């Protein structure tokens, strides 16, 4: 009986996961990610001047957020999952920015 309950539970969670997007939607997201990656690589060959670093960082963050929101379903899921993940992420960024600042990384 316990096994039956477990199977029932997993199937329902699967349905829960389905609430994301259609196959076409996922393919569109992948195309957007591929285009951003192509733009990122282009910055290596084309001189973006003072926009080089900011544009790379923005594109990196955009790709990160798109994958987390759509492929990992955080955008559609319960907010508690977002809280758990982004807590770890924000903590990591805070700790390591402070760590790098201690070694004067940002004023070289």
């Amino acid at each position, binding site marked *: 009986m316990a096994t039956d309950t477990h199977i029932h539970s997993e*199937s329902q969670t699967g349905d829960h996961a389905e609430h994301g997007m259609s196959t076409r939607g996922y393919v569109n997201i992948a195309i957007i990610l591929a285009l951003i990656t192509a733009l990122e690589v282009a910055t290596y060959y084309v001189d973006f001047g003072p926009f080089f670093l900011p544009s790379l960082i923005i594109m990196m963050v955009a790709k990160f957020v798109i994958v987390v929101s759509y492929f990992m379903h955080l955008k559609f899921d319960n907010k508690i999952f977002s809280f758990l993940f982004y807590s770890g992420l924000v903590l990591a960024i805070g700790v390591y920015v402070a760590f790098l600042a201690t070694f004067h990384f940002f004023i070289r």
Partner: protein
Amino acid sequence: MADTTHAHHTSTGQSNVKLGMWMFLGSECLLFGGLISTYLLYRGRVSEGPTPSQIFDIPFTSVSSFVLLMSSLTMVLAVSAAAKKDDRGTNLWLVVTAMLGATFVGGQVYEFTAFYNEGLGFTTSLFGSSFYTLTGFHGVHVTVGIIMLLALVAINKRSKVPGSKAETVEMLGLYWHFVDIIWIIIFTLVYLIPV
């Protein structure tokens, strides 16, 4: 609706497995944050051996990054198929994901070999040590993911109830996408931004 049906299983109304997985991924941010910031500190410390700009092969790494990015698409298609109780589709996309992951790891092994032949050993310089540690840890994560993908395909084939491993597929999907987002950061900070 799913929230309501889970309410009697857990105190939060959410799957404990999923809560645990997200908590694990949050903690992994700290692990990779430490490795990435250590690399950023040491990438310019080259007492001997080649510098990053001398050995990085951007076209090659770009193709590897694209392959890993596309594996995220195939993984989400596996999760979607599992949610529809389509075991055949699930297994197909899991195998394709594993193959794309293996291609990425193969590329990393090739890259490491090429760097070693060009004079960048693990202890050659602080740059070498931090680079191999960071990308090596990521490669191990991808390899563990591939093993889990193939194990899940084997388990799924034995399962007699269609879609019974939907949650397991979803959890593995979260892990796989996490490995991908870490590479998104590594590709930009390590390869594309010069010292």
